[in-house]
């Protein structure tokens, strides 16, 4: 399995950059994924609001939340989610939150 190496740490990811072992996610992991996959050097409070919501939702329902729920929970408009995570809610935010890749042609 490919790994991404960043700042001396190794993270096992699948072919698309999604965390292979979602249960191993930590906030450190999020920062590493954000940097490696989204080109984000740092995560602001706004980023964290989205990531925390997604993570909590996933742990509770074992599903990726719809973007609408992300917007409702964080109060951000859709455009803001795209601003924060250039790859979008599925491939960007969910990835940073350590979720496995959502199914479907995305």
């Amino acid at each position, binding site marked *: 399995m490919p790994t991404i190496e960043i700042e001396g740490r190794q993270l096992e990811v*699948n*072919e*698309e950059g999604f965390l292979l072992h979602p249960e191993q996610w930590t906030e450190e992991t999020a920062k590493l994924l954000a940097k490696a996959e989204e080109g984000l050097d740092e995560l602001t409070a706004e980023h964290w609001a989205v990531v925390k919501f997604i993570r909590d939702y996933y742990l509770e329902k074992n599903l990726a939340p*719809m*973007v*609408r729920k992300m*917007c409702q929970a964080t109060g951000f*408009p*859709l*455009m803001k989610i795209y601003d924060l995570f250039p*790859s*979008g*809610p*599925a491939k960007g935010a969910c990835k940073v939150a350590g979720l496995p*890749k*959502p*199914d*479907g*042609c*995305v």
Partner: protein
Amino acid sequence: MKRRKTGPSGVVAAPLDAHTQVLAKETGLPSVKDGRLRTYEPGDNVARFLDLLGKRISRPLAVSMTACVHCGLCAESCHYFLARPDDPTMTPVWKADQIRKIFKRHIDWTGRIAPWWVKAGSLHDDEDLNRLKNIVFGSCSACRRCTYNCPMGVDTGLLVRFARGVLTELGIVPEGVFNVSRDQWETGNQMAVSEQDYLETLEWMRDEVGAELGDDTVEIPVDKPDCEILYTINPREIKFDPRSIAHAAKIFHLVGESWTMPKWGWDQTNFGLFSGDDKLGAFVARNVYEAAERLRAKRIVISECGHGYRSTRWEGYTWADYEQTRPTESVVITLKRYLEEGRIAVNPARNAEPVTFHDSCNIARSGDIVEEPREVLRRVCADFREMYPNRRENFCCTGGGGLLSMAEYRPLRLEVGKLKADQLRATGAKLVCTMCHNCVDGLSDIIKHYKLPLRVVQVLELVANALVVRGASGT
């Protein structure tokens, strides 16, 4: 073809991963229990494969099996081979031959008596079937560029879909293919979006458009009968990016269009096209056609999706044995009509960055739409430029054929995306516009992987950007 050396084969050696299939059986999913969604069973799968092959082969497919003269002209039309010129296993002729040799061995004449003479061969076990799976799902996006370049008219793209269909019947498919098929069978849409999520997202977008226009009469009607237009979308628009729904709603509102979306049968995408499963194809397409019938809509409009367009406008009627009675068109055609009739006003200066257009395989090669998006883009963009080759000679975005749902084939897909990257870079454009959601993701992956200075957009977005709003009802 002057190369003499042969490198290692790019065919991905992905094993059969059936754990979600096992889960589906254990949880007693209805579509599994009644046999609509097929799962892998140990046993004589080769015999089952051969039986299905014999039963399902149609005349156009049979002659595509027999007509190949091994001339090799198809090789240089395929992005897989062009990106890996030392790898004959990436050529359409080699890939088709892996299916063809089985036909020659079991159904054709000479191959049954002297198989070695015509390079006929059989499958022996599930390992062989899995290897075939990796070829027909993982080494080909069924873009039909080879079909268009074959002097004999062999349709390798169709052969690949056929082989996929037989493997799907045996559950010998990539995990992603099973999962999406399962979701579409069980929920009627590819991404398992619930009715509640669907309706709430529509309401949300209605509110957003209303707020933007300062107009509280904006509607996204659901199940409204006797409308001009039944609008159908890609579930991706609900789950991940509803902005395109907002764009469409805004335009329909400004034009004063009589339109509705259905409560059931709103998914125009169709995984049956990719998995080769005509049953699933029929089910999904029929949902749309019956929704239009139920609501007595005059025409079905399909949001921007390549395989969805091909499935709903063309293949679906045949799969479902449903005679077409109402016009079925892409939303781009609708937009073109609005522009030509002057029902919306646009200012091309609003889209100032250079834009190029990527023709999608399922829309151009397997469909009828080539000039219309260009006519729209020339009206709404200041700097439109072509990529080369284009139109029906364009190269696949590499994300076609459902490949985006198959993670195990991604590295190869990105590797052969080099052709596309070069093509994009050469245009000097900042935006690449496409009518297909899969192309959006396929191209985005390439842009990211090859670090190209481009962004992907769709026609609806560019038209919405260029809109000059004249008043509440747009006239």
